């Protein structure tokens, strides 16, 4: 299976220095389980993604682009020529426009299916098919079988990135591709005004406007709605157990008793 891993010029979330985003390092690890993988980066400079070589890629293709240019047409042109079966990407950039649209736009350009939030992937039981596991909220998962080609975005719960190996990083090659990106009609951009970010207080759920400090503490610790609580004082243990089970079933966290529907 031919695999391409999209690498972005990310920034470290804390220090703000250039770094390989963690999700992309995890993507390299997922790619290694699927087949031969190549990295792909579009941007002015490939040094920022050189770290990916030490994380397990042996080769990175670099498409030179002006800073701030839309990478999608160039990436689409390269991927159309290389025709990988699987394209792996992070969920969202960190350090650029951060909209998370690139995998979707590429999938549309390539006619591939997007499967987001992947934590594991393996070749399917028949050729031309891939089996992936998707992370869902609350610890659940979904196993999806899809026809190739696919674009997968990686979930933070995927296996840890493999350790950085210096020798591998030295041996790896970055190859520069010259692509005359076809003038595809770029998606209409939104005119934005930028200024430096100012953190704002998050809205406090349920805190009354103009309430006292006691009200706000109550909202922060989640009190308030339990004024009409159902209190059982010194019940028989069995009675208490039945009440708890009935309550858990009423709110739907416990399966109904066997035999009851």
């Amino acid at each position: 299976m031919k695999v391409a891993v999209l690498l972005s010029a990310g920034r470290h979330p804390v220090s703000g220095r250039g770094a390989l985003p963690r999700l992309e390092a995890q993507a390299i690890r997922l790619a290694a389980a699927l087949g031969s993988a190549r990295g792909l980066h579009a941007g002015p400079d490939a040094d920022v993604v050189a770290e990916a070589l030490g994380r397990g890629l042996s080769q990175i293709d670099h498409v030179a682009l002006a800073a701030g240019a839309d990478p999608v047409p160039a990436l689409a042109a390269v991927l159309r020529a290389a025709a990988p079966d699987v394209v792996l990407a992070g969920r969202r950039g960190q350090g650029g426009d951060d909209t998370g649209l690139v995998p979707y736009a590429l999938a549309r350009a390539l006619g591939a299916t997007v499967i987001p939030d992947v934590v594991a992937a393996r070749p399917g039981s028949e050729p031309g098919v891939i089996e992936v596991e998707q992370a869902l909220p609350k610890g659940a998962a979904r196993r999806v079988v899809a026809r190739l080609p696919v674009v997968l975005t990686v979930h933070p719960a995927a296996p840890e990135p493999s350790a950085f190996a210096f020798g591998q990083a030295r041996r790896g090659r970055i190859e520069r591709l010259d692509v005359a990106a076809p003038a595809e009609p770029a998606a209409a951009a939104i005119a934005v005004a930028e200024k430096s970010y100012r953190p704002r207080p998050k809205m406090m759920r349920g805190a009354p406007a103009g309430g006292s400090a006691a009200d706000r503490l109550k909202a922060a610790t989640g009190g308030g709605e339990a004024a009409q609580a159902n209190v059982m004082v010194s019940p028989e243990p069995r009675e208490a157990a039945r009440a708890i089970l009935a309550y858990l079933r009423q709110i739907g966290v416990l399966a109904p008793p066997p035999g009851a529907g």
Partner: protein
Amino acid sequence: MTRARRDPRAERAAAALPGAARARFDLFARCAGGRPRRDPRMEAAAQRVDGAARLRLDRAQTGRPAAAPAPSRAEPAAPPAPKTIVMAAPAFLVAVVPDLAAGRLSPHDRQLFGAARTLAGADGGVIALAGAEGAELGPAGADRTARLAGPEGYAPDARAAAIASTMAALNLRHVIFPETPDGGDLARRVAVLAGEPLFADVEMVSAAALMRPAQGRRVEQRAAPARLITLAADAVAPYAGAPREARDEPLEPSAAPASAILAAERIPADPARTPLALADFVVSAGNGVTDLETFRAVAAALGGTPGASRVLCDAGLMPREAQVGASGTVLSATCYLALGIAGAPQHLQGVAGCEHVVAVNTDLHAAMIERAGLAIVQDAQVVMPALIEELARERGAFA
């Protein structure tokens, strides 16, 4: 020492009002140049919290009268039932696509309606595009609802196509998605399908402009409201007005695109291995639990993820990853079962997001009992075996 000498006579002459038959003076004119005079009485009146039975002042409100009087929670008399707002012919529509996980509106879903109301203004209508029936859409702030028809199971491309065709058919001015795994995925699919730009992860909404962070939160981008928007969690207050009618808007079914997804199967979470922060149901032990073997058996029998208070983790009786609270894990669970936990503020902060709490404690006055929706004042050591017995009996009755 060298303060300028006052000349009361000259000051008085300067304050004299001309034209009067009798000598008249405006003595307030004297302080015109300096700091404005404070009026403590008026300030206190502006700080008054309306509706409270006894006098209450909101000191955070300085000088200006309160914009909106705070709703009183102590008021015993219930307000008259609010009338449903009916919007006969909205000038335009703003759509909301709630996640409706498990068929219910999450707090994040409700915040979408708040943002949509801001963007719709006085003459726009809010339409909820839902995959399933939802009775609570009207109170949440929907003027219209539309059912998105689609194939059963996991078919995000079909949903995106349905939304994109609705967008064109109803000429929606804005479509707002939650920035969640599902909602964010759907928004991006719709964006590439419709060829519209997406303004993602919006943190501030007003009728004139939206704000989103970019470049790893180093800059913020401000722009006029785009057509496709995803909204970050807890950035906008939910809609708080009177319920709206949520009238059904018929939609023509659109043809679902061919899907490359051959099979999709949902695997439920394994409670024993789910990280605490993700778990849906947490069974937690505190200092009042001495029999930890039974506790672990209870957690396994109920299918809950085991948690603990700090006392047990400090004592090494439970792993540190199990600690719930301010210095442990903040939960996002639906239900929290607290066995022998007093409910210290640091512990309750971890439980704040839980919708339902069940407490078992010997102390009727424990804070956990106050927080709980179902409180059992009883020894945890006798309730735990009773729970196991009851579950076994149910299984036995069936077998």
